[in-house]
């Protein structure tokens, strides 16, 4: 059952006494009510630990929620739900539900690094935002988004093309995966300039890393490895 972030029970119970005496003085009104317990429920506290044990997310604990990251954020201007400060807050509380609700915003970081650069506490914000998103992906809580799809495509293109990419191999793979890339008109225009300069040869036949098959094997093995910070 999803619980909206702002309505989660923070105060569990209140005891009200008709007659209460504190330090010999009788109190009434709001003073004779006592909060029994302050607990937050509906949170998954393991989320903070999971993120802070990754290479990208290790600095999450240093955040003091000043909002410097969000105030300068490139993406914030386009998407009011995009707030690195809030992502960090929710992730530390372990509020997976609220994060899932804003999943259409979570992936939209353009990696301009303003937040990381400006953070007064040295939080690697851009990396932490990706770590939070990756945590949700790992638990299968969010849909696959265009950015993750493109990142995977990028890695696949590198792996399948001898360790390098060109604008053509990447563009072709992206078009195949359904991204809107360049129109035929754009390509013809580009082709003209490229032919003139002789660039076209390099683009069509990109060079490969000589012993790529060996490197690729090691990389494929390394992919299975989880990096844990000690």
């Amino acid at each position, binding site marked *: 059952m999803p619980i909206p972030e702002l309505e989660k029970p923070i105060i569990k119970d209140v005891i009200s006494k008709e007659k209460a005496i504190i330090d010999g003085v009788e109190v009434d009104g709001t003073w004779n009510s006592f909060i029994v317990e302050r607990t937050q429920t509906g949170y998954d506290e393991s989320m903070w630990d999971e993120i802070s044990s990754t290479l990208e997310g290790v600095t999450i604990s240093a955040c003091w929620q000043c909002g410097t990251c969000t105030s300068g954020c490139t993406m914030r201007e386009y998407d009011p739900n995009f707030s690195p400060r809030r992502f960090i807050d929710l992730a530390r509380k372990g509020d997976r539900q609220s994060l899932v609700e804003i999943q259409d915003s979570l992936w939209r970081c*353009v990696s301009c690094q303003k937040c990381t*650069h400006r953070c007064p506490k040295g939080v690697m914000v851009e990396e932490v935002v990706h770590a939070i998103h990756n945590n949700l992906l790992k638990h299968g809580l969010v849909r696959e988004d265009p950015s993750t*799809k493109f990142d995977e495509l*990028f890695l696949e293109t*590198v792996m399948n093309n001898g360790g390098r990419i060109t604008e053509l191999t990447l563009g072709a793979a992206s078009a195949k995966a359904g991204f809107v890339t360049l129109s035929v008109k754009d390509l013809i225009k580009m082709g003209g300039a490229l032919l*003139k300069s002789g660039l076209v040869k390099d683009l069509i036949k990109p060079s490969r890393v000589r012993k790529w098959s060996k490197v690729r094997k090691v990389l494929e093995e390394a992919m299975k490895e989880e*990096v844990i910070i000690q």
Partner: protein
Amino acid sequence: MSERKEVYGKAVLYPGCSLDGLGKSYEVSLKLVVEDLGIPYQRVEDYNCCGALEVKNVNTMVGLLLPARNLSLAQSMGANTVISACPGCHYSLSRANHYVNKYQNVGQRVNEHLKKMEEEPYEGKVGTAHAVEYVYNAAGVEEVKKRVKRPLTGLKVAPYYGCLYSRPKQFLGTGYSPFKDDPERPNFMDELLRAAGAEVVPFEAKTMCCGGPHVYSDAEVSVHLEARILKEAKRNGAEVLVTDCPLGHVAIETNMDKIARKYGEELRMPLAYFSQLLAFAFGHSPDEVLLTANLTGPMSILRRYI
């Protein structure tokens, strides 16, 4: 002058995929510039893609191994500094450098994998520099002035540095060393262009994001960000947008028609790499520095200097 060169020791160039692709004009012109200035470098051969901003999001270890292999190649060439012309590569190599030095167990794992690839274990000691920083520090503005044969007097330029030339300080060390540019208000490229005789216009979008990594996945936003950069340059009267980032350069050039259609024809503006303008000012022909290969046709403006 020799002292200045000492800053970088033995320097090698990591070309990265973009310089062997559409960024060819960047590499060709940069090579002419450093040779004219007497600060040549060797090229890292058999390099692989650095992983850019994409691979690190998919897999942590591969996101470190791709750049680390390149650092190891540079190390085995005896390099003290690896120069990247692409800020994406510069960022990626610096990031790997940062992490293998900061977390010993990560560094060890990286080296175990490098050994399996039959590469030298990486000791974490190769420095990183961007091409603009290298030209600015190793040669210096005065040397550039001396080489200018074709002063670009009266050419109004807006230098666009992009995001990863100076951010984040944790990886790139910007703001901590006199050989690194000011991270929020960079000016190394401004000074190099001024030395070539050009007039640098006030430009507030120097380090604004072009939406590069999401040029396919979030296209609308990217096009709008690019339009804003061009608008800012136009407002200040720039004739050419000068770049140091192949990712931003190619993204803006290929999107120029879309931008003009959507945000106004008046935003059309030619783009050129800073090294193209420097090499052109040093007397090289437009064909030699591949100014003719730029999709936005900067020769329409630069013709008056021939």
